[in-house]
């Protein structure tokens, strides 16, 4: 299938991602009353970009690009909640540093935002993630799906998102049918804005997921199982985040078993 906007194909998908994440943030702030500390909107992006720049200078990298840290920063703004100014500064530093500290071949091991959130959840009692903040509106679900698929289509990683959502839906419907629950329950669980945001914008990160299609499908299955385990077995929140962080450790093994060329952002390809 040809992309809908074929002439835009040469542009960096991260530009779309930035505009869509910004739109979601504005929508969340003004229509869903997100409980975001106003400082966060200023401190997180600026600290993220500065951190990236510092690593760029320190490691004498050829091209400085603010797009990646901006994407991580916008994701942090959407997910991270805290009343501590210190943590608003620390979160983007940890997030961006993870890209430079945990490297393997030409990839980084963790999705940066995921790593930042999980680390702070583990180390401090001062942050939280509000999975309920998006509500369960069907329209919103469609909006997410539409916008998100555009991004992943550009990034050629639609397979992992789709596979994950299918696996996760199978788990939810399977559980409901085993418990004899009405279908409204798994449907309610699937209409979660947090789930869609995770699938479209965090899991789809081409720099941290396995290189081969088979690897990505396996990875999607593991993450779905892990998330369900945390939610329905351990009865803890943020199952998606914990699961992704845990299975990211297995990406090098998956890539060794099922190898392929690592992903390059289009801008690098042209060079």
């Amino acid at each position, binding site marked *: 299938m040809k992309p809908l906007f074929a002439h835009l194909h040469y542009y960096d998908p991260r530009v779309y991602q930035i505009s869509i994440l910004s739109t979601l943030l504005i929508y969340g702030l*003004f229509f869903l009353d997100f409980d975001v500390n*106003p400082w966060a909107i200023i401190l997180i992006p600026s600290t993220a970009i500065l951190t990236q720049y510092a690593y760029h200078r320190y490691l004498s990298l050829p091209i400085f690009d603010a797009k990646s840290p901006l994407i991580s920063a916008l994701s942090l703004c959407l997910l991270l909640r805290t009343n501590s100014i210190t943590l608003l500064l620390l979160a983007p530093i940890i997030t961006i540093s993870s890209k430079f500290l945990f490297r393997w071949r030409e990839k980084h091991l963790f999705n940066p935002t995921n790593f930042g959130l999980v680390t702070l959840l583990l180390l401090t009692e001062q942050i939280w993630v509000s999975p309920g903040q998006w509500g369960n509106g069907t329209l919103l679900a469609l909006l997410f799906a539409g916008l998100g698929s555009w991004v992943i289509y550009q990034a050629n990683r639609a397979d992992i998102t789709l596979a994950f959502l299918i696996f996760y839906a199978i788990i939810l419907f399977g559980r409901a049918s085993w*418990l004899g*629950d009405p279908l*409204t329950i798994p449907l309610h*669980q699937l209409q979660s804005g947090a789930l869609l945001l995770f699938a479209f914008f965090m899991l789809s990160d081409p720099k941290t997921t396995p290189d081969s299609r088979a690897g990505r499908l396996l990875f999607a299955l593991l993450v779905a199982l892990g998330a369900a385990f945390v939610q329905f077995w351990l009865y803890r929140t943020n199952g998606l985040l914990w699961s992704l962080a845990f299975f990211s450790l297995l990406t090098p093994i998956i890539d060794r078993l099922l190898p392929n060329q690592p992903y390059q952002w289009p801008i690098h390809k042209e060079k």
Partner: protein
Amino acid sequence: MKHSLWAVLLLIYYSNVHSFCGFYVAKADTQLFNKASQVVIVRQDDKTVLTMANDFKGDPQEFAIVIPVPTFIEEGQIHIGDKQIINHLDNYTAPRLVEYFDDDPCRVYLREAGPAMSAAPKSESSDMIRSKKNSHGVTIEAEYTIGEYDILILSAQQSDGLEQWLIENDYKIPKKANQVLDSYIRQNVRFFVAKVNLTEHSKLGFSYLRPIQVAYESPKFILPIRLGTLNADGDQELFIYTLTQKGRVETTNYRNVKLPSNMELPLFIKKEFPDFYRALFEEQVRKQSMRAVFLEYAWDMNWCDPCAADPLSVEELQELGVFWLRDRRPDNWAELDVFVTRLHLRYNADTFPEDLIFQETSDRENFQGRYIVRHPWEGKETCDEAKQYRQQLGVRYEGEARRLADLTGWDIQKIRQKMKIPEEGTPDSKTWWQRLWHRN
């Protein structure tokens, strides 16, 4: 509140919390709502104390309740609570009305600081018969009387058996209960049932049924609401108070919405504050398509401002199950580490298909449902400022009328009539050019 915060962005963000003042005039407690249940959840780590109160008004003989608990419980884990303490908690956390009086615009003086905070005031079982019976695959683990209740702790392997047993023992079970009971049993949920022991009830002499408390330890931070949605008698009203150490509690599987708050409203609201709050809640529920859980109060238990009631005493909190205060001595005046969250929802099986799942956040930002009426200054106009002030009142009244209409869904024309302001929607009867050139 966030919108107004954004308007002034960073400057006052951390200064607004302690500056509420104004005179407290009225509150809107839970008795305004029919069929309202109240639940208090005390939780730290995985230890939970759940207190359930409902406004059952019928014949005590008719009262029977099936309570799902996430884990196995024993006799000593069930306790009877004190309704007065829940009423106190309700009053302490209720949405409130405050009033201000405009100053004489001709006088200039510095504003006084807010009123001092109130300090916490002072305030204020059972025969056991062991038996183990088994019928329909339902084992009675314990059977005893506590307070005015006959309690049976059950363990069931199959929902058919449980449903059959409940029906045979005169428990009224909604039609589709079997499905929900089956789902709960597969999730290792345990049940206990309570009926009123009429002899004990009349001996104790309470005109109402006291709340039932259960203490358990489980990672599940949930409130089972599915059995309640099966009753076909319309939407249910639920108030949840949580008492935790770290901070505000929110639902993770439903959207949390802060009730619109801190707004100036027409003066006549003072006389009909309960009606206003009921209409406000109704309208907000409608706007969110009955799919949101509303935050009505989130506050550090050490204080309040303005106080709709004094904060709860250490004894009252202990009685509600705040177990980390157990060893606290009465002469210890150090701050209490108790944070209260009040959530309010209206629900039915369509809009709230799943049980409520909660998480405790580290958010300690205070929030309250607070509404303001401001009395105009009524003295003589002795300066230009006074004339200007009078002219601006019209704009203010119109703003208040629109705000009230938006919040409650009330007809704006009727609001204007009640406020005795012009109906056509202009702030006063003058045209814009009259206001421009004929200021006097």
